[in-house]
């Protein structure tokens, strides 16, 4: 997991789990965990659901994690625990996410990129493949989509994904395999043959 830390707050050398423990006495310390984990999580959620929902869901994820921090037992990585909460919040928007993929597939216009498109530079390639991938993504079940996008967009390892989703490693591999197969069908033949 990527880390961003701040000098001078005395927390730099502490592991995430130690900060969670410290935050039980001093709730302010939990802010360090936001600094460490929010950027990457935010970028991932934004890529799946767009900018507006990303802000809301990151807020909600950290609020839930903070409220339930007593129950974090340190057995799994804090980041996996956090991503697990976020994954569930993302799943709550499964219908909206599917609609956006379908709209993208139908129209070639990605609703998730609404408002940020002006900043995009070279979008030619995305414009060609995006709608086809979006159509395939719309067809994936919640867990298949979670698993393959955590791999491709979240840059999590298979083991991390298994921890986040609390599934056996073999199940995660099978889900990703199935998802990739569906995505491959969406690509032009000359590309998927490579």
């Amino acid at each position, binding site marked *: 997991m990527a880390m961003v830390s701040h000098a001078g707050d005395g927390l730099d050398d502490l592991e995430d789990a130690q900060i969670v423990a410290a935050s039980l006495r001093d709730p302010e310390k939990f802010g360090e965990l936001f*600094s460490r984990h929010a950027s990457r999580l*935010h970028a991932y959620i934004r890529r799946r659901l767009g900018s507006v929902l990303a802000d809301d869901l*990151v807020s909600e994820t950290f609020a839930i994690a903070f409220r339930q921090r007593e129950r974090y037992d340190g057995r799994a990585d804090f980041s996996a625990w956090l991503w697990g909460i976020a994954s569930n919040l993302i799943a709550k928007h499964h219908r909206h996410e599917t609609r956006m993929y379908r709209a993208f597939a139908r129209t070639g216009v990605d609703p998730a990129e609404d408002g940020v498109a002006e900043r995009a530079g070279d979008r030619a390639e995305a414009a060609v*493949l995006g709608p086809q991938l979006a159509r395939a993504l719309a067809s994936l079940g919640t867990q298949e989509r979670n698993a393959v996008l955590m791999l491709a967009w979240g840059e999590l390892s298979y083991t991390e994904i298994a921890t986040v989703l609390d599934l056996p490693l073999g199940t995660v591999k099978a889900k990703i395999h199935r998802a990739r197969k569906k*995505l*491959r069908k969406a690509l032009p033949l000359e590309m998927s043959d490579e």
Partner: protein
Amino acid sequence: MNELDALRRMRTVLAQEEHPERLAQRIDWQAAAKTALPPSRRGFKIPLMFAAATLAAGALVVYVQSDVVSGRSTAVVPQGNVLLVAATNAEKAPFGKYWHTKTIMGEINAVGPTVANHYKVDSRQGNEAYTDRNGMGVQMFVDFADVPLTAQDRKKWQAAGSPEWVPIPDPIGLGRVLKLDMSARNQSAQGWWMPTGDSFHGLTSTQIADLPTDPKALENVLLGLEGNWRAYSSKAEVEPIRALRGQERVRALSDVVTILLSKAPAPPAVRAAAWRVLAAQPGVQAAGRATDPLGRTGSVISLPLETTVPLGLFTAPQQLGKYHRQLIVNPDTGILLAIVDRVASPPRGRREIGSGDDGRPRVLEAKNMPDRFSRPGDLASYQAFEVAEWTNTPPPN
């Protein structure tokens, strides 16, 4: 390039990470944590990570009755009676430790080239949730295969060879083909229990518990709720519901009221007040009795809506038809059974909605709409609440 590489090149603009301090300035998670739950109050034990649970195949299958599909209903009852009876009975409903809901949502798409040669497909998904009075809870998502809407639609689909993927046209006229997944392997739903969020149109569970039980006072609080309440607007504007006028205000207010009557853990007295707020809105009418998408009979309350798209998501119109929304209520229990959107006038003509991000002109055309062969009264989409009740039985763990 393989499919993972292709995926990695998608939406790269959105993948850029922002500095945590910049995020912290915009995202006030601490306020969210504080408003959601005072530290002194405790909820039930949350299974933080739970093994994937598989629901029995068909456990939540929707049986659509012929009259919910056709929209026929009988025996008109005065509007005041139904809603006020529902309010009185909602107030008497038992309270409990957990608000438990099971929801099934569907959208109807026409498949086929002509009025004579088409069938309709119900594209579905669902969820189940338990929330305690402090806003702590668990929920599980349920995926369903898309299914033919009626027995007659099923026969036509079977006559076409029961295809797993069925094509539907591109409503914005760019010539792309969208497909619905009707493969049987998705019939068995899958999901896992995870913690829920605690925001219902911006209200937390504790705020909902403290809402006024006097209808006028409740309406006043709800009109002050800030959000993006437009069906479409060129920029995302945050404004209170009271800034809206006419039908737009009824739509936004009814969205919040129906959340209080369905997914939100509202105490019986607040639910009663919510029904009374709804009864006072212009254009809200009783429309007889009908069965809901799960086959349960209830009284119909009709709301005038021109569009059924979710609020706050779109920058341009998405539909060419006009719609109305029906709430199907069991007045004897004060429970909202379903929210059903019906075609009021089918899509007609075309409408240019400007260029998309790729510079290509977008045009909505009636011949490409999912409801292109629908008649007035036909089902367009729905949310059915299979369960919506207070219970003392804790969620499964």
